[in-house]
């Protein structure tokens, strides 16, 4: 088990102490001005923020003594700031001494030493005196919640989690260590154990749980992520109370703490995810009820966000980086993934028994490579908002130009996708919106004549679906005029007269090269640039576009693109001597059919029965003309794959070779487009494997079936 979190935490600490040094210096300077009597309210605020920032970080790292002192200091400063106490020269001296003592605590925390128990107690007494009639602050438990610096970016929330396992929990294999390990991955975790119920050794049943914990978690993940950690035990094997923790009861009214993460409903019923454990018995609902005082979920600091020079302004924790540099990083990570796969393959002959360190090292390498890659990809991920933001103006301008009325409805603007994908989407999206307004939405008169509202609606939506991003552009216009499309296609020689086409096939004709449906080419949809260009742009980046249309009711264009253009998780399959990669997101299951399951239907071709359903069987060796492959269904393996549309087909392969991450190399730019293939990749052994395009394969299966039907 590697301890990544510990590593992160120590890195954080270095930053924190650097900042402490700066904050202390700022506080000292400012207090010196106070001593000179040259100070204003802003200076007191500045000192307050310095102390507050130091306290916030200290809370995250559980430097309890430091937190305690800083808390009193800060409360005293607040009393001064709010005028409840007066700033005299004597008080200014106390502040100087307070800063010194604070520095002592910081240094003690830094080098892990312990100060005498009463260190700074005289200053503490003075500070408490300043606070005056308030609550006895010194009595407040030292394990204070990490507090929020004023005006910090509202991205983190502080949660207090009270976790009390019931005696039998350990026997179900649910070890608190596992949950704490998971909690720690969510953010900065402070852990407080309660060992009060630990019995004498002789009375102890080692399989029973006697400890309980209070965690303070600073995280930018929501409540649901925390619930998930305890999903296996909450309510059944343990009592779990999760609540937002703030600076409750202190009433400073300083923080503009927008609730970053409002408490979600208790986890109980969230089972849709396909896993979990035993929803809590109602009687034992987690004690998560927010306190009556409605504590604000405070914005909370990470050390990094407690920017230096506290109080001098708002700091956003981001930097601008040249995209070229990121691209270089992405490319190098891509190469690293290949190298790692290659090493893995080279070492496949070794066993854990014979080479434990090698195998372990490779596993760690694989793990870290993947994390590195995900981190790098996350740098480039952006919400599609940037793309969508162009749409309202486009719709407005075009509507007036075309004398049509249309409103735009958008959804999923925050869906994130790789920046390069966003760039590739821009033109096609613009074109499809134009198309919807130009050809889809009718004039207000036409609409009213058919009983529709005068104003048409265009819906622009984005969502993630099975590892891809789906952009949908839907209009409630007239739909595709299939008769006219067919006529045009025949005119252009794309289709022969008398050829039987399904509605779906007719609709897809609008993407055929050189096709244009407008009776007169308007200057809106542009001349010469047709849907074929849209489709080509999308296909160039491994995407697909389909259209669904209902005459009179409207059309829906669905663009589907990979989330990133660089890598994907794939399953390597063997067909004869060839290797293919199936995107993991498409795979439903694999099995070896029995003779009873495999059969041939006269009008459809080969099918399999699986749990009472027919699945069309597509032997890959047949599609790609591979010799030497297994042709007997009962001797090969069938991989059931699902397309974005939800259709399932079974692909016959010889065997599955393993799951691996592959770096996507475009076939179009390196070779030429091949039907049924979306891209290629280089395997660990240097061989090229083709990445299968499941939707295209399904389409081919459909054609094969139709050909079979035609042959009847």
């Amino acid at each position, binding site marked *: *088990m590697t*301890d990544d979190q*510990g590593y992160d935490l120590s890195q954080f600490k270095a930053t924190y102490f650097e900042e402490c040094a700066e904050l202390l210096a700022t506080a000292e300077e400012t207090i010196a001005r106070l001593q000179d009597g040259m100070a204003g309210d802003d200076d007191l605020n500045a000192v307050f923020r310095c102390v507050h920032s130091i306290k916030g970080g200290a809370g995250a790292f559980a430097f309890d003594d430091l937190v305690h002192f800083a808390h009193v200091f800060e409360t005293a400063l607040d009393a001064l700031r709010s005028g409840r106490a007066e700033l005299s020269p004597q008080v200014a001296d106390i502040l100087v001494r307070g800063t010194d003592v604070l520095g002592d605590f910081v240094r003690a925390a830094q080098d892990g030493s312990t100060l005498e128990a009463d260190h700074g107690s005289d200053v503490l007494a003075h500070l408490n005196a300043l606070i005056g009639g308030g609550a006895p602050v010194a009595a407040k438990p030292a394990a204070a919640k990490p507090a929020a610096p004023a005006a910090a970016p509202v991205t983190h929330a502080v949660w207090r989690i009270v976790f009390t396992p019931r005696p039998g929990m*350990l*026997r179900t294999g649910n*070890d*608190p*260590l596992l949950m*704490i*390990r998971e909690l*720690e991955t969510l953010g900065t975790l402070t*852990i*407080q*154990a309660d*060992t009060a119920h*630990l*019995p*004498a*050794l*002789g009375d*102890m049943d*080692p*399989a029973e*749980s*006697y*400890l309980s*914990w209070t965690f303070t978690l600073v995280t930018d993940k929501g409540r649901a992520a925390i619930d998930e950690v305890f999903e296996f035990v909450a309510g059944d094997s343990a009592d779990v109370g999760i609540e937002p923790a703030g600076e409750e009861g202190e009433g400073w009214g300083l923080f503009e703490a927008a609730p970053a993460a409002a408490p979600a409903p208790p986890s109980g019923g969230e089972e849709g995810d396909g896993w979990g454990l035993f929803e809590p018995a109602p009687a034992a609902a987690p004690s998560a009820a927010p306190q009556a005082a409605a504590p604000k979920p405070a914005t909370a600091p990470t050390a990094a966000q407690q920017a230096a020079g506290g109080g001098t302004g708002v700091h956003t924790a981001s930097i601008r980086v040249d995209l070229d540099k990121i691209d270089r990083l992405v490319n190098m990570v891509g190469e690293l993934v290949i190298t790692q796969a290659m090493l893995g393959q080279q070492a496949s002959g070794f066993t854990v028994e014979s080479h434990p360190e090698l195998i372990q090292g490779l596993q760690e390498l694989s793990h870290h490579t993947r994390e590195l890659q995900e981190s790098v990809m996350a740098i480039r991920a952006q919400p599609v908002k940037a793309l969508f933001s162009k749409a309202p103006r486009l719709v407005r301008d075009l509507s007036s130009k075309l004398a049509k009325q249309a409103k735009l409805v958008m959804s999923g603007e925050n869906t994130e996708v790789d920046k390069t994908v966003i760039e590739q989407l821009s033109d096609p999206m613009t074109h499809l919106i134009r198309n919807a307004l130009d050809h889809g939405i009718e004039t207000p008169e036409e609409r009213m004549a058919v009983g529709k509202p005068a104003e048409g609606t265009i819906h622009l939506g984005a969502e993630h679906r099975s590892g891809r991003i789906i952009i949908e552009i839907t209009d409630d216009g007239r739909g595709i005029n299939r008769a006219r499309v067919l006529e045009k296609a025949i005119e252009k020689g794309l289709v022969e007269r008398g050829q039987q086409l399904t509605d779906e096939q007719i609709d897809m004709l609008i993407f055929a090269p050189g096709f244009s449906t407008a009776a007169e080419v308007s200057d809106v949809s542009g001349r010469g640039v047709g849907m074929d260009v849209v489709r080509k742009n999308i296909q160039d980046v491994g995407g697909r576009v389909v259209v669904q249309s209902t005459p009179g009711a409207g059309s829906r264009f669905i663009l589907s693109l990979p989330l990133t253009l660089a890598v994907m998780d794939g399953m390597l399959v063997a067909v004869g001597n060839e290797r293919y990669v199936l995107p993991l997101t498409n795979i439903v299951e694999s099995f070896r059919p029995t003779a009873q399951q495999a059969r041939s239907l006269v009008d459809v071709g080969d099918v399999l029965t699986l749990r009472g359903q027919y699945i069309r069987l597509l032997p890959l060796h047949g599609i790609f003309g591979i010799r030497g492959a297994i042709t007997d269904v009962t001797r090969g393996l069938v991989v059931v794959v699902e397309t974005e549309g939800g259709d399932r087909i079974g692909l016959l392969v010889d065997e599955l070779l393993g799951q691996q991450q592959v770096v996507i190399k475009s076939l179009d730019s390196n070779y030429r487009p091949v039907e049924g293939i979306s891209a290629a990749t280089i395997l660990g052994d240097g061989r090229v494997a083709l990445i299968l395009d499941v939707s295209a394969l399904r389409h081919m299966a459909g054609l094969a079936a139709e050909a079979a039907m035609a042959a009847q």
Partner: protein
Amino acid sequence: MKINDDNGRLVIDLPAVLDLPVASELRDLLLDLASRDTAAEIAVGGAGVERASTAAIQVLLAGAQALKAASRRLELEAPSEPLITAFRHLGLANDLNRMITA
């Protein structure tokens, strides 16, 4: 696991995996040691631990308390990284420190 006599010190070397059965065995060994009428130093060797568990750490805590009650001390020798991490994760870093340092 067994109790080794190392020049008058009584040492239990922990195995790599501290699962429930090991926790149970460890409890019995520590009980045995706590009941012995001896002034010998008692130590648990933690260098070989690859996987700790809450159950085992509870036993160590209770063992330390039992010996402390008898004015003796349970020392944890050379705890491995996973063992230290487990103590830290359980919020027991201070208890660990007390068991490590004299």
